[in-house]
């Protein structure tokens, strides 16, 4: 990295010791610089509702975005067992869909990049359907996942808007699928208004997802709809060549040599954009909940 001081052995040793002895950071493996560390015991930590683009009227917002609502802070309070709580605090970020098949919701953190190099996205997450029935409900949540929305700087060569998407397809039409998928296929880009400055596309449309090779994984769903277990996810991406470099969930490290992000021509207002999203999707007429206990985003600079 151009501006990064050389990492010497003493710094590496100190960083490692300090992070391992800090209970809040010890469960993460951040790169040299922590860009953000959110545990949701200090509020929403900059994770807001993904609102769709519009011009002149809100009616111009695509339906995919219009359905989104604000994320909330939850103790995972259940009707039968009370508050479940997070990994080590009472609160988690909760992303809830509406109760209709295919409904989605997205929370987003919007930053800008300082350096074009490796970044790491780590989180502890879990998902459940709303416990409206005394049933397991393990095929009610269609998917949950995360995506980045990235664009290089205004002086870079050959800049594209790049959007890596990864989801855990839990179920579809009542079938328990349980596999990781990525999406590189583009949705239609529509212009908004008459100034030629704003456009919109619903990149989470349900079609166009591809299987990650050997991406099947059975997660700990537990045995009723109100018991949850926190899963660790880690996704590495290199902002220099805009490629994914590694993906892990719990004990499994996946081969992502076939992973491709969406690539779109650079847009007029998005220079150095560094956005991160979590999303949830229900397969049935029941709310799907994605809970995020904590997120650590770090970079090698």
């Amino acid at each position, binding site marked *: 990295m151009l501006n990064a001081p050389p990492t010497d052995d003493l710094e590496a040793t100190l960083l490692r010791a300090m992070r391992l002895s800090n209970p809040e950071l010890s469960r993460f493996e951040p790169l040299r610089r922590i860009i953000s560390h959110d545990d949701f015991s200090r509020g*929403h930590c900059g994770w807001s509702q993904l609102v769709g683009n519009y011009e002149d009227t*809100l009616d111009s917002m695509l339906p995919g975005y219009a359905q989104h*609502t*604000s994320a*909330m*802070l939850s103790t995972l*309070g259940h009707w039968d067992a009370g508050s479940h709580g997070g990994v080590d605090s009472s*609160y988690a970020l909760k992303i809830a869909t509406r109760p209709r098949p295919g409904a989605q919701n997205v929370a987003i953190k919007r930053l800008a990049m300082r350096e074009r190099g490796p970044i790491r996205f780590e989180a502890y997450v879990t998902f459940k359907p709303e*416990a409206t029935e005394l049933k397991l409900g393990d095929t009610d949540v269609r998917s949950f996942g995360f995506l980045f929305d990235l664009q290089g700087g205004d002086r870079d060569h050959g800049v594209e808007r790049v959007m890596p998407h990864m989801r855990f397809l839990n179920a579809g039409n009542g079938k328990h699928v349980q596999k990781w998928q990525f999406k590189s296929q583009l949705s239609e880009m529509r212009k908004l208004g008459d100034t030629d400055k704003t456009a919109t596309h619903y990149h989470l449309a349900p079609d166009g997802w591809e299987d990650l090779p050997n991406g099947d994984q059975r997660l700990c769903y537990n045995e009723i709809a109100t018991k949850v277990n926190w899963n660790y996810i880690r996704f590495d991406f290199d902002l220099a060549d805009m490629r994914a470099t590694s993906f892990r969930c719990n004990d499994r490290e996946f081969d992502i040599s076939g992973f491709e992000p969406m690539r779109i021509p650079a847009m007029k207002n998005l220079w150095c954009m560094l956005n991160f999203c979590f999303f949830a999707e229900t397969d049935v007429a029941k709310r799907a909940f994605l809970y995020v206990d904590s997120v650590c985003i770090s970079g090698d600079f």
Partner: protein
Amino acid sequence: MLPENITAILARNETWTGEAATEPYEAGWAREAVLFVRALKTPVGRQPEAVIEISPDGMRWLPEGSTLTMPAEKDGLAVARITHFGNWLRLRTQMPDGAATTVLVTLHLKA
């Protein structure tokens, strides 16, 4: 540390007819809430009362006691101030036959 304070958008550009309610919102960390309703378009027909509801589980609802009258004009505002609500909040109303309104419902929470 400053106390937490969050604005949440519960409904944006939703057209309400018949039985209508916002999605459930969890706010157990907050001591007080102010909920605003703004009519984004000219409402149609008589605009009814709406009630704040609370819940033990986000699925079963009771009136909290606060009410507001849905705005009768475009860009009209209505407000309800709420305290002592436990965890779950929503706004519910019953639009009369033939009545409709397109709303922005915002919730302002403070620890």
